[in-house]
């Protein structure tokens, strides 16, 4: 069974459209993340949720809105897509305890390659 899954794997769309990427983890983890990896492989965190609560919200345009319906899912919705949004988006999860500040290994999904034309 896939631990962290993302759909779709590839997403090609026109500028101005709205799209969503879904992420699910079956590891029972409390924390989930969204990362963006650019063409130079720089991996930057966008959001993190712990037990459905937003705990990290990096400098990301408000066109990006994460939604966590339950702790096993963290979806990413993007409005009014722009050319610069083209990248690979990774979802990850981990069994962190942010209150004790103990961080553990993250399990990554396979990535969603978004291309905005």
């Amino acid at each position, binding site marked *: 069974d896939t631990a*962290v899954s993302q759909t779709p794997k590839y997403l090609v769309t026109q500028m101005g459209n709205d799209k969503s990427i879904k992420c699910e983890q079956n590891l029972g983890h409390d924390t989930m*993340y969204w*990362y963006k990896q650019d063409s*130079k*492989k*720089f*991996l*930057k*965190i966008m959001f*993190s949720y712990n037990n459905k609560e937003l*705990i*990290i919200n*990096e400098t990301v345009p408000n066109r990006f809105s994460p939604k966590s319906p339950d702790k096993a899912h963290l979806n990413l919705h993007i409005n009014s897509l722009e050319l610069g949004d083209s990248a690979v988006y*990774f979802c*990850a999860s981990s069994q962190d305890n*942010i209150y004790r*500040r*103990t*961080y*553990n*290994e*993250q*399990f*990554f*999904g*396979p*990535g969603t390659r978004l291309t905005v034309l």
Partner: protein
Amino acid sequence: SQQGEEDPQALSIQEGENATMNCSYKTSINNLQWYRQNSGRGLVHLILIRSNEREKHSGRLRVTLDTSKKSSSLLITASRAADTASYFCATDAWGSYIPTFGRGTSLIVHP
């Protein structure tokens, strides 16, 4: 925010040789992790080393951490063609909830 920087950016070696990659960071950390990313895939965790540890081993991997120099190294011994991948370090700084990754070292192992 805290950011690890890997060095070198790219490394090309022959199978059987050892590969060493370094990571430097700027502020005190809780822990440091190394990840591998094969082309077109997600990252896979290799080793986590905590700030009070100096060395860890896992199979052919050896990680060291020098908090006085704010640096870590990843050594892959007796490399194989299958080790070809990008290797990233990730740190989380004291007082920060934000894990930050470097840009990675691209390793090519020639058969």
